[in-house]
């Protein structure tokens, strides 16, 4: 195999296809019916990712990958805190739910500010 001739999406797709093959072999062994959908859905998920990678690289036409300086992640931290408190509210005490409410708009505001400040190095 030549180093330049291995398309990334191809590796991904081959991996998904090999899983499909193993799932089909499983049919011959009379497995519990619930196992096929789990297995086939997982293989399909991988093939979907392969398709996404193929499309992105095709649009790029061999150019080096573009990149921008990422803005800081204040909004990400606030959003994660909201998710954490939401999880606690569901699993432990509903009283925590009001704490989640102001965090979501705050995260959105910080996100909007961060996107406006985005620059290229």
């Amino acid at each position, binding site marked *: *195999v*030549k*180093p*330049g001739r*291995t398309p*990334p*999406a191809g*590796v*991904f797709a*081959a*991996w998904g296809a*090999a*899983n499909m093959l*193993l*799932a089909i*072999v*499983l049919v011959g*062994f*009379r*497995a*519990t019916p*619930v*196992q096929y959908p*789990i*297995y086939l*859905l*997982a*293989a399909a*998920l*991988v093939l979907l*990712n392969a398709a996404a*990678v193929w499309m*992105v*690289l095709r649009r*790029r036409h061999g150019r*080096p*990958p573009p*990149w921008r300086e*990422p*803005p*800081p*992640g*204040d909004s*990400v*931290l606030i*959003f*994660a*805190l909201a*998710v*954490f408190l939401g*999880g*606690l509210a*569901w*699993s*432990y*005490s509903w009283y925590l739910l009001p704490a989640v409410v102001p965090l979501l708009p705050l995260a959105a505001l910080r996100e909007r500010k961060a996107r406006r400040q985005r620059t290229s*190095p």
Partner: protein
Amino acid sequence: MRTATRRNPLPRPVASRAGWTEWLVSTDHKRIGLLIIGTGITLLGIFGLVALTMRAQLTRPGQHILSPQMYNQFFTMHGTGMIALVITPLALGLGVYLVPLQIGAPVIAAPRVTLLAYWLYVAGAVTLILSVAVPGGAAVSWWGYTPLSNATYSPGPGTNLWVAGVLLSATGMLLLSATLGWTILTKRAPGMTLLRMPLFTWSELVTVFMGLPAFPALQAAMVMIALERAMPGTFGSNTWNILYENFFWFYGHPVVYIMFFPFVGCVLEALATFAGRRPFGYEGTVLALLGFSVLSMAVWGHHLFASGQVANDYYSMTSILLAVPAGVEYFAMLGTIVYGRLRYTTPMLFALAFIPQFLIGGLTGIMVATPAFDYNANDSYFIVGHFHYTLFAGSAFGLFAGIYLWFPKATGIMHSEKLGKLHFALLVTGTNVTFLPFFGLGFLGMTRRIVTYPAGEGFGTLNLVSSIGAGIIGLSFMIFIYNLYTSARQRVPAPPNPWGAFTLEWATSSPPPRYNFSARYPVPPIRSYAPLLDLRLRQQRAGEPERAGALPTRGNR
């Protein structure tokens, strides 16, 4: 390694308050990677203490250090914590730090998604720790089988918190897998084709292949438990119980490989570096990694052999087939060190110890992949010995090989080799003294997850030996932390390539600049999977002075 440069200590960095808060919201993949690794090592200490308490309880028959309910909570916390919060995040966290450096990328793909993944992981960790701290704490083991985990048999908020914690950390790991995969496939520097990527990066790529389908299966399983707990009877029949087990193990087995492939990558890199030669059988190893990861998605049913609900012959066949790619990988490891000029540094010692210890884990895995054997060994300490040899004697040794190998790169300072070797000696002793007796206990008939055992069963001596070994492991961990502490205090500067390694991350400064490479440290031409070796060989042929340290020559061309 350390004494040569001790006279020139680095200035101690002065971190302002703003500097520390910048770390928490930084989108630099190196900072996020170090945060994940730091959190993982902290949690390793916490869940290691949980394990030591369990070993103390089992040291002698009839002890009462922990009540039965507490013991159940402790092994739930130990299992869930080590798998979901320690080894998996460390495996992916190493990738977050190293992969962009190894492929010549200035940033990771979707850096803020990576940061979100880290914080969801932290949220999951806090929630999971709370799940045993509240009254009626979670005691459902790391798999949370139904109906044990439903509202009837596990009432109270503990199991709710456990479900939420697993769900949060699984979401974090899924996002980490996605950004790592996207980085490897779309952000490589010009010239860095797939078959020129370092083996560590390949190990992360196949880990991502497994993680992408596996983590959603765990999320689905957790949603099922959550629905059943919120609306009892939703998944009341035995069909649903089996469905849950299938969803869980569709995650539960690949995650075993997610927890060791990156560490196999660390070992392969350490062996090549300290043997002073290119990795032996590069293409074969890549194919073996891919084949291994494909098969790893097809073996989950072997956890259900004893249930009578799966096609045992299929899962036995695919599980035993794993020996083929594993054999290729072992052949590559041994081929790399044969004819190499070995340097017995701390990372090399950990990598060398990985080889026989992981072999014990792998070979006992083949034994339990046979249903006839598995029926007898199922739920015994033999199984506990098998997976601890895989995940501790294997993965932990690969982890420490990786940590010691890349510590100078990540921090810009050298660790103490003397303390590193002491850590190694204690860990290799402690590991084998702790886990080898488990096989004997399994053969004697000691079952898993029991809080104590009768004095006349003959389990006492082996349990005592195992507990002494656990203490030695604890001591080795303290030596490791002390090594980090003294290294941070003494600050002996590390050059860009202190080990004379061949992959791209060693071409930049230690620690690397914000965007990994710069005008002073550019990405060198990439014409093979060992670009720095190519560069040095070209410099040698041209008669130029070497810049990057001693060049091992045997077996390189």
